[in-house]
């Protein structure tokens, strides 16, 4: 099932491509930072005990 984009195929695909790339980048960054912070915090809590 492929839609017919006509002469504007590049334009439309480009727009969707850029959007998806940026969104995925944002999501990936968010998840990575979140995971990293969670790991560092758990590490710290293990070292210090729950309340230092």
């Amino acid at each position, binding site marked *: *099932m492929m839609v017919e984009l006509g002469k504007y195929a590049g*334009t439309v695909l480009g*727009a*969707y491509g850029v*959007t998806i790339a*940026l*969104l995925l980048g944002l*999501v990936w960054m968010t998840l990575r930072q*979140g995971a990293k912070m969670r790991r560092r*915090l758990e590490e710290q809590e293990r070292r210090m005990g729950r309340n230092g």
Partner: protein
Amino acid sequence: MSIWEYANPKKFMQTSSWALPWVTGLAVLTLLTGLVWGFFFTPDDFRQGSTVKIIFIHVPSAMMAINCWAMMLVTSLVWLIRRHHVSVLAAKAAAPIGITMTLIALFTGAIWGQPMWGTWWAWDPRLTSFLILFLFYLGYIALWEAVDDPDTAADLTSVLCLVGSVFALLSRYAVLFWNQGLHQGASLSLDKEEHVADQFAHPLWLTMAGFVLLFVTLVLLRTRTEIRARRLRALEARERMA
């Protein structure tokens, strides 16, 4: 039970961890449905051809870029008045999402502009306002990055957000005065003349909802990260003292 309870970090962490799976699921669902519907199952416009499909990402991202700043303004005010840390951390967490939305609106607009207006960029008021919005986001994020002490940074960025909002509105009027543009008016307005056809409007509503939900998901995730960072800072400080 008041809304301010969620400004307590612990309460926020609990509530958000309960809500996140639902919001995430819903966001993915609406976004995917809306995009698939818009991309595959809408006809070409008689003037714009298939480029009309860009509207399904362009308009929601443009809308979210503005709404995100509005949300930051409200949370900054809450911080300045009631000094709830979570509030300002939510603003900090939202800024990178806002700048991404701004970039998406700018890029998709630029790509759209190439066939429609024959140029990537024109100094149209709508476009120009977005460029200015981009600069505001950039300054806001840079200020957060530049200040070491988190509470100092929170105060300064909140003041900047406040003053910036006033100037952003002022810029909008200035830019309108400076140049009447090429850009479309609001197509989802109630004014029948301007209204886009229903076959475009329905998937557009869906992707707009999807972008809102995606925004909420990301803000929750990022705020949780910021709270963890603050807790880590507090713990590390305590360790160093000991």
